[in-house]
């Protein structure tokens, strides 16, 4: 790998790392900023949301009570109708009928009242003029809804309806009524809001009817007495007036260091107000919890994304490195191919003069470093090439060259064969090729001598070995070349054709 390649790779890795870190930083910073913005927006929204939320809660509960009242009045109508249809002649039969209809219609403490204010229940008959507020008036013309809290009894909702047409045992009945324990109503209202809000039923003077705690500060106290010290007098009076008039409204105050918001709505047909209270901190906590959950989810997402990005980057990097290596290797291959092409003689396939020059430079260095012990050079020259070219054409001349090259390669198959001129070849021999150089030269010379007789290819060869006094390959070459010329003369004498004798 070149220095330039190394720099490029480092630059690439550095860029990838910086890019990844930058990406992580940007994603994290963006998430934190978004989270903070969400919290700020949440805080601003809480105040608006709390009133709206409470109003909905109070309204829902108020409607539940209204439905309960309407359902009970409907059931009372059915109960009276049922009793009217029965054949009743005795008090015992009336009590049995009341018991039966109570059970059938699931009515709490259903009772009838006659014109003398005598109350008939399933088990008792009593004079009820002082006990039931709806009997204060001699005549009863319309339905009555009242709150009963008598001498330590549980607080109850009393629903009474006129029964002007009912007559039993020749006695006229003026009303029917049911009494519903407010604790049962409270149970009905305690639907799931995850205990985040407090609620209570209040009479118009702020008295708690439901016996439920309206938060730790107000508790079960009178609403207005409890809040008098923590609300501006004008607001307090306004709220009290509104409450007494049976209006709906809301109130915010800070008590025990906690911001509280309460909302009240009137309950239809009653003198009750439904009050729901929530600490703003609860809304804050709730929304903050949601935000924190979202943030935690975002963090996980970010971590997951970053891990993915890192994995992806790593994979990409590895892929790029592999591709880079492959490209490099391909380049090397191409370069080698080009180099081979540059060093190869296209006609014979052996290496050319350029290759010889590279080898010569290489070997010169080795000789200089005294790293070569065995080195021999064989210089070969084709006899009669010019003659063949001139008489038989270049094609025949080229064939002669190829034949000569084949002949040399055949004999010196353990050496490196170079064509360094038109009819001149050099063989560089090391190791085994060096050891057999002289023997092979002898065999080749015999072959060449035979070729002279058959008028085949003739090559004059001369060889030389590296000696201790040699500083360059050229010196070895020169001796071999000299020997080749000597041989060329010998071959001429034997009968080989040369430029000279032709």
């Amino acid at each position, binding site marked *: 790998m070149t220095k330039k390649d190394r720099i490029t790779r480092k630059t690439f890795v550095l860029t990838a790392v910086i890019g990844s870190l930058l990406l992580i930083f940007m994603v994290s910073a963006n998430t934190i900023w978004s989270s903070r913005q969400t919290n700020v927006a949440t805080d601003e929204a809480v105040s608006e949301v709390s009133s709206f939320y409470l109003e909905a809660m109070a309204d829902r509960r108020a409607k539940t009570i209204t439905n309960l009242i309407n359902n009970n009045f409907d059931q009372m109508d059915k109960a009276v109708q049922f009793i009217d249809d029965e054949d009743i002649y005795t008090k015992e039969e009336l*009590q049995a009928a009341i018991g039966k209809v109570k059970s059938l219609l699931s009515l709490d403490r259903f009772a009838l009242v006659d014109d003398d204010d005598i109350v008939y229940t399933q*088990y*008792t008959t*009593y*004079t009820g003029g002082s006990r039931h507020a709806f009997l204060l008036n001699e005549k009863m013309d319309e339905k009555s809804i009242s709150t009963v809290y008598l*001498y330590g*009894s549980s607080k109850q909702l009393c629903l009474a309806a006129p029964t002007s047409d009912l007559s039993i045992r020749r006695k006229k009945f003026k009303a029917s009524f049911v009494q519903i324990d407010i604790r049962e109503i409270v149970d009905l209202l305690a639907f799931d809001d995850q205990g985040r809000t407090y609620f209570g039923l209040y009479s118009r003077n702020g*008295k708690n009817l439901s016996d439920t705690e309206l938060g730790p500060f107000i508790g079960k106290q009178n609403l207005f007495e409890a809040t008098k010290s923590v609300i501006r007098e004008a607001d307090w009076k306004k709220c009290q007036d509104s409450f007494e008039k049976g209006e709906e409204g809301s109130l915010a105050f800070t008590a025990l260091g906690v911001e509280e918001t309460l909302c009240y709505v009137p309950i239809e047909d009653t003198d009750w107000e439904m009050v729901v209270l929530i600490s703003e901190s609860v809304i804050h906590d709730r929304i903050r919890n949601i935000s924190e959950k979202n943030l935690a989810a975002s963090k996980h997402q970010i971590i997951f994304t970053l891990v993915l990005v890192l994995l992806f980057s790593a994979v990409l990097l590895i892929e790029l490195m592999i591709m880079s290596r492959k490209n490099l290797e391909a380049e090397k291959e191409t370069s080698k191919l080009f180099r081979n092409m540059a060093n190869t003689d296209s006609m014979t396939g052996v290496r050319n003069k350029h290759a010889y020059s590279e080898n010569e430079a290489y070997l010169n260095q080795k000789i200089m470093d005294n790293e070569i012990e065995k080195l021999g050079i064989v210089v070969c020259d084709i006899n009669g090439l010019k003659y063949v070219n001139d008489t038989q054409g270049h094609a025949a001349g080229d064939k002669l060259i190829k034949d000569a090259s084949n002949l040399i390669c055949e004999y010196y198959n353990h050496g490196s064969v170079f064509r360094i001129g038109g009819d001149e070849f050099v063989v560089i021999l090391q190791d085994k090729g060096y050891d057999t150089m002289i023997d092979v030269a002898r065999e080749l010379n015999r072959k060449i001598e035979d070729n002279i007789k058959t008028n085949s290819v003739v090559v004059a060869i001369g060889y030389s070995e590296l000696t201790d006094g040699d500083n360059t390959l050229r010196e070895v070459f020169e001796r071999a070349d000299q020997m080749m010329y000597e041989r060329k003369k010998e071959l001429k004498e034997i009968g080989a054709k040369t430029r000279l004798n032709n």
Partner: protein
Amino acid sequence: MKCLNRGRLSAAVLAAVFTLTACSSSSPSSGKDEIQDSPDTAVETVSEEQSSSGGGDDYVSSAVDFDHELDGYMPLKDNYNFYFTYKIVHPWWDAVALGMEEAQRQYLDRGIKITYEYMAPKEASAEDQTERLHKAEEGKYDVIGVDVADEDIISPVLDEMVENGTKVMTFSSSDAKEGCKRIAYVGNTHNYEDGADLTEALCEKLGYKGKVAILVGSVGAPCHEDRARGAKDTIAKYPDMEIVATEYDNDSIDLAYNLTMKILVGNPDLDGIICCNMSNPVGAARAITEVKSDAVIVGMDHDYEALRYLHDGVIYCLGVQDCYSIGFDTIQIAVKIADGNQPGELFPEKTDETTTVIYQKDAAIMLELLYGETP
């Protein structure tokens, strides 16, 4: 039945005694002997200082005992039918009714069905009560109970009914005359002492000197008359105390108001009013407030308006009877009587219920206890 034996009574307390006595007795001492064998009988009064400092919430809360359970007696029948009649349609007896209903509910949980009538006229009348009793005698009732409207008139009626084989008991505020053959009584056996205790409290407040008036309920009603008698006897002990008027309001708040206004016109320097029933203190307090009199009011019972006046300091003290326990025990003993039992080990001839004297500082707790209201 409860016993408020706290040992908190001080010598400084006016007539703070545990007195065992009979309600209808003209002589308190004779009644005392009669019910001494009943360990459950107790009357308690305490001074204002004790009530507000030493007594506290428990003292006031225990004035009415809402926590009742039936005793271990196993009734012989599955069904009982009773008839009860009382003096007048009035919230005091509505409180008694709540105790009766709780006992009826507990019997029902045990599989025993109790039905009863609980009736009264709109105006107190011994004649009306006599008529009701005769009519009830014709009905199929296991026991007939009566809160005696006038002991002189009703006691002979009850004797006659018993002689006819009817099981008769008395209950709530007034027993029959001493010697009446009725089987048992459940209620206040110490009305004389209640009147005396309230009057002692008033005398102490006035420094045992001053003019006082006595408001009573219905003429002949034993409980009212006994309290008035207790009041008069107490006043008589102190030479500087003077009774300037005694009036009957027939258990009407409006009449109590009018009578008080009349007394105040005649006695603008009136120092105190002793009220012997539930309506007396309410009417008196209305009048006192209206004319801005300094007269000190002491009275009976747990009326909501009276408790508000007590809280506001218009009424000095109130004797609160445990109506709830009276109602509960009445049903429980009626069942035993219906089964043919006589007073003895199973129940006393007179089942006494407590009266607790409460003061201004106790009013809030009592209002919360009885009416679920924090003033």
